[in-house]
């Protein structure tokens, strides 16, 4: 079980309030991702759930019990840190077994649980090595192993993949996804990478300056961003936000069109502009178009390889059904 409820939670460091009153419910078994730019308070929020930071006010409930004053070790949560935080002088076996040893479990049982965890994480060959002799991905797996053996009510991940190289990150992302499918345990995952958020989450919590901007499934956030911030943050490349006369035509202060919802033509269309940089990825072409009123440059994502080069004139037409409208305050207009 692992249902976590935050009620009216706030956090201040001295006089600066980093998290204004915040409510959030994380259902049992959900994979929740906290995403937001650096300094948005997502890690602080996670550390508050873990008990590593005190709450300034409000309270936290885990499985229906008030956990606000419960010490971190008794909350039944396991955390995986960005730096892995492995114990450098202990072998992998001892690292994974450490929480069990602290729980005064007997040695035979510890050995058996460690082996089970190591097997599921492909760490059997490394059990007697020290963390310093492992690669980044292996260290991350050890850190996950140390979390798994405790059989926690929920896993907390604090940017666990940001120290890995890009290829490894994709692999570990899948492994963590698999792990969630297998264990069905609540997982809370903090990242600043919206791709990680989109691919892994059941539920994404978008944060900015300690405030929850939107909570929803990845596709909800993609199709119906509640405001300009979420619209710009979710999706890659970023949504084009257009202000001024073009927006006024749709009775909005700002309109947003995702790069993949714009048609490119060399003969005619709604907007005319000049090609800046064209990024050819093979499967897609990202074209940066200059000279369009209210949005410069506008990014377009065209499927396949489009034969345009720097300086060409192109015409762009947004798909009418995929135009997002926002009012003066940046809130979505339906």
């Amino acid at each position, binding site marked *: 079980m692992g249902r976590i409820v935050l009620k009216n939670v706030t956090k201040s460091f001295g006089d600066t309030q980093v998290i204004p009153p915040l409510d959030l419910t994380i259902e049992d078994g959900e994979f929740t991702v906290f995403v937001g730019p650096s300094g948005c308070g997502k890690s602080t929020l996670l550390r508050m759930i873990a008990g590593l930071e005190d709450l300034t006010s409000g309270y936290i409930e885990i499985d229906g019990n008030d956990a606000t004053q419960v010490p971190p070790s008794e909350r039944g*949560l396991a955390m995986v840190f960005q730096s892995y935080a492995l*114990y450098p002088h202990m072998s992998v076996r001892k690292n994974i077994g450490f929480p069990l040893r*602290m729980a005064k479990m007997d040695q035979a049982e510890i050995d058996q649980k460690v082996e089970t965890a190591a097997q599921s994480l492909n760490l059997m060959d490394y059990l007697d090595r020290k963390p310093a002799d492992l690669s980044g991905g292996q260290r991350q797996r050890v850190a996950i192993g140390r979390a798994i053996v405790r059989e926690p009510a929920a896993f907390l991940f604090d940017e666990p993949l940001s120290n890995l190289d890009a290829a490894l990150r994709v692999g570990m992302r899948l492994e963590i996804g698999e792990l969630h499918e297998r264990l069905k345990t609540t997982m809370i995952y903090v990242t600043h990478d919206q791709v990680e958020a989109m691919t892994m989450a059941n539920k994404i919590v978008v944060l900015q300056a300690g405030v929850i901007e939107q909570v929803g499934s990845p596709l909800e956030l993609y199709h119906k961003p509640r405001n300009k911030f979420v619209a710009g943050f979710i999706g890659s490349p970023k949504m084009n936000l257009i202000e001024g006369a073009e927006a006024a035509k749709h009775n909005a202060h700002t309109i947003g069109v995702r790069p993949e919802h714009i048609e490119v033509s060399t003969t005619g269309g709604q907007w005319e502009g000049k090609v800046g940089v064209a990024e050819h990825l093979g499967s897609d072409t990202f074209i940066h178009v200059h000279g369009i009123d209210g949005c410069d440059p506008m990014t377009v994502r065209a499927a396949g390889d489009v034969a345009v080069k720097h300086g060409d004139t192109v015409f762009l037409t947004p798909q009418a059904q995929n135009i997002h409208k926002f009012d003066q305050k940046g809130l979505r207009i339906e």
Partner: protein
Amino acid sequence: MSDRKLPRLLQTPAVLLLLVWMLIPLGMTLYFSFIRYVLNNLRRPEWTTPSLSNWRGFGNYEFVLNSKDFLLAIQNSLLIVCSILFLTVILGVLIAVLINKAFAGQGIVRVLLISPFFVMPAVNAVLWINMILDPVLGLQGIAVGSINDLLDALRAAPLVGGFFSLWPELEPISFRATQTSAYAVIIMVTWQWTPFAVLIFMTSLQSEDQQQKEAAVLDGAGTWSQFRFLTLPHLARPIAIVVMIQAIFHLSLYAEIEIVSRGNGNKNLPYLIGEFANNNIGAASATGIFAVILANIVAIFLLRMIGKSLME
């Protein structure tokens, strides 16, 4: 191979200089230890100049081994060094952990803690033996005296007097005495060198990974377990460094021993060498060679014990 020649050539002067610096004194000591060489002898004036014709073989070594002070000096050298190492490491770790947490006045406390290290060894010895350890005029004498006065007063008091008259009169300890002068040296050197240990441990504690500690907290480790499983292993290397440096320094203690008891009942090898060197250079050199051997034995043990943690 040729690209290695130039660097070697460039190193040569420095290496040669170091070798000469080390080998000449060692060679002369060896040479003197095998001949009869004294500074002053009216009956055998030829012994006062070093010469191969005064060859004595292992005679000097035999003389030193048979002298009544030699075994005492070796025992004392080891006792003093080991006790100081033991005390400074334990006190150093405890104090470093204690002052590692932020508190008001931290800066001043740290400076005060470090300051004993800047006192000259001879001054340190004079201060301790006269002002603190002296059985009459020192702090010890005054403290023991006041406790005795208090006890006297209590004995005279009604009701409780009977109980306190069962208590013995306290005797101050004379630290210049044969049996205790080594302890005086251990106390004062520990006082002086604990700050060194604290300083090194403190810098090491500040580089301790905080996320590891947080992970340990979540894993259910209490304060003691964190200290035992994270902090102590983290300190293994600085402890090794402190032990090594201090072992080197304390094998050659001299000033404290001279001032506390003039070697009375408390000699270490350097002090014994000093005593022999008053006249008998041959015996002093032989003792010196023994000291070199002892230092090497200690070094081998230390490297065995400590080398592992340094290499990791």
